[in-house]
């Protein structure tokens, strides 16, 4: 009996953190995705000078829960001529791949489900790319022309832009010299400078490619509602539709996390190795306190008693979070906990900013035509990212020749970035010269563009 108990304890010691993280992610992610949707709607409303959802809860704060309930109790329709089994499998595949990819990511130095895997970032990229099968098979199984068109467009788009995204990641990984996620962030700490600063071209390429990979506007051709009803999601309703939505937003979080880890310093605060900037550790607390105070100011303006109480509760929540964030700075807590709590804050803040950029671009840029999308991918992004890998390699060799390290490495990489920028401008002008007169090609007709 005794060895069995001991083995169980050992097992728990090894696995309780990953298990707990996994359960938290799977349980909380639908809620988080719902609130990302709310933020997106609010942002869209703000940019279009409207109020956005205001009815459910103060400032529409309970809207995601109402939406989720509505989707859950909707009728589940499976088209008669569809392939029922594949129709059932497709959304599950999408969500499964997206959630599994999250397992490889590290929110803080301690919060990681699959801890310290050697192939870290490749795992995340590879597994999340499998989500495409959910879209393709879902579009095919619906047995509808709009769905099939959406699925075809989606697979063509993903295959095209994955190359550019992969090349951008290669440029970042050249600096890190490892695939392990923890080691990548540690490399940025010891270098003292984020890899996004060292290679802004790679960051830009990854940003554009990741928008295309998550099927977001201005590249949301697979679900272009003005042409394809809703693309591959046309025949899906209720909970299955919600699963696709969950997968899409999870994928957004995944690409944002990958970009944060590789290019924006992961869970490190800005200038993590500069010690006279240590007062930045108080920034998380300050931010939460400010949000809480703002909520308190807004309390008297709420229309009803319930709304006022709710607003008070939100303010209280902000103060509690502020206290939690203050604790590791003031109290003498062991280092891993301190780095864990503050690190998670910085990581989530960066991910949120990246997502904000996604939304901003969505509400600013009009949708591309399909042949334009393909040309942007193949004639601009892929050559640019390959040139960038070359330039980064040369810069690194020059850096090691002159023994440049940390910030001094910028001396070698800045010329590379400038050359990359010139290459981008040349590529764009060549592109415009060759295609300005040409009408949409026959390929556009083929894809239904």
């Amino acid at each position, binding site marked *: 009996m005794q060895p069995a108990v001991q083995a169980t304890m050992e097992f728990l010691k090894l696995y309780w953190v990953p298990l707990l993280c996994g359960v938290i992610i799977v349980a909380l992610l639908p809620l988080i995705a719902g609130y990302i949707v709310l933020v997106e709607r609010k942002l869209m409303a703000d940019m279009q000078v409207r109020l956005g959802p205001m009815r459910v809860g103060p400032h529409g704060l309970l809207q995601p829960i109402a939406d989720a309930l509505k989707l859950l109790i909707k009728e589940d329709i499976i088209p008669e001529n569809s392939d029922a089994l594949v129709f059932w499998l497709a959304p599950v595949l999408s969500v499964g791949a997206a959630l599994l990819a999250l397992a490889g990511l590290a929110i803080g130095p301690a919060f990681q489900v699959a801890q310290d895997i*050697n192939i870290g970032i490749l795992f995340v990229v590879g597994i999340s790319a499998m989500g495409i099968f959910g879209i*393709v098979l879902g579009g095919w199984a619906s047995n509808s022309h709009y769905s099939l068109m959406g699925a075809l467009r989606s697979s063509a788009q*993903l295959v095209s832009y994955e190359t550019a995204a992969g090349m951008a990641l290669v440029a970042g990984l050249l600096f890190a010299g490892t695939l392990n996620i923890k080691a990548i962030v540690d490399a940025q700490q010891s270098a003292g400078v984020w890899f996004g600063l060292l290679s802004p071209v790679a960051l830009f390429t990854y940003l554009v490619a990741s928008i295309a990979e998550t099927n977001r506007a201005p590249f949301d051709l697979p679900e272009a509602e003005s042409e394809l009803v809703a693309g591959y999601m046309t025949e899906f309703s209720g909970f299955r539709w919600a699963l696709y939505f969950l997968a899409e937003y999870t994928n957004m979080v995944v690409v944002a996390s990958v970009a944060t880890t590789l290019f924006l310093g992961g869970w490190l605060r800005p200038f993590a190795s500069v010690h006279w900037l240590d007062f930045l550790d108080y920034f998380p607390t300050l931010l939460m306190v400010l949000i809480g105070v703002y909520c308190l100011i807004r309390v008297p303006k709420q229309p009803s008693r319930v709304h006022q109480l709710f607003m008070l509760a939100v303010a209280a929540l902000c103060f509690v979070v502020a206290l939690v964030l203050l604790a590791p700075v003031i109290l003498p807590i062991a280092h891993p906990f301190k780095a864990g709590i503050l690190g998670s804050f910085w990581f989530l803040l960066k991910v949120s900013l990246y997502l904000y950029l996604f939304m901003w671009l969505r509400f600013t840029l009009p949708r591309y035509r399909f042949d334009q999308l393909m040309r942007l991918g193949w004639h601009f992004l892929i050559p640019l990212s390959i040139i960038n890998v070359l330039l980064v390699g040369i810069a690194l060799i020059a850096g090691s020749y002159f023994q440049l390290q940390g910030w001094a490495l910028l001396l070698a990489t800045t010329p590379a970035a400038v050359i990359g920028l010139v290459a981008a401008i040349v590529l764009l002008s060549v592109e415009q010269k060759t295609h300005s007169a040409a009408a949409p090609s026959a390929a556009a007709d083929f894809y239904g563009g």
Partner: protein
Amino acid sequence: MADKLIFYFFAAIAVGGAVLTVTRRNAVHSAIFLITSLLATAGVFLQLRAEFLFIVQIILYVGGIMVLFVFVIMLVNLDVSLQQLQFSRQKWVALIVALALAGQVGVMFWSAEKLPGQILPGVTAAAADRLPPNSEAVARSLFSTYLLPFEIASILLLVAMIGAVVMAKKRT
């Protein structure tokens, strides 16, 4: 023990998926089972502590090649393919080839038992915990020992790609 269980689990899925791939009449279902089979093979790689091969298998075969497969299959008219005869009539040739292959595998296992300390002829086992980090080891051998074959293979792929582009281009 757990290692063996995991291996047989993935191996069973891989073989089952492969059998279903060739027996399904619906091409998309075949593709789904082929994906299952490839994923199970990736699982076997992981069980062998070859995590780099595991993820390359997923990225290249599942995420790259199979997406293109499914892309093409979706455009095929399934009603026509359902009418066609599925298996070719070269039964006897197939039987002879299969028997020869089975014999080869059998001889390999038989000779492996004769030579103690070796898993397969010419392959020595390394302890799993003493394997170097995979991706580094693969990169090192690709870019030092096998540099020339690697470059030749790359050139071959490039030629194939350019050839495909030239053939696909419209003649004006």
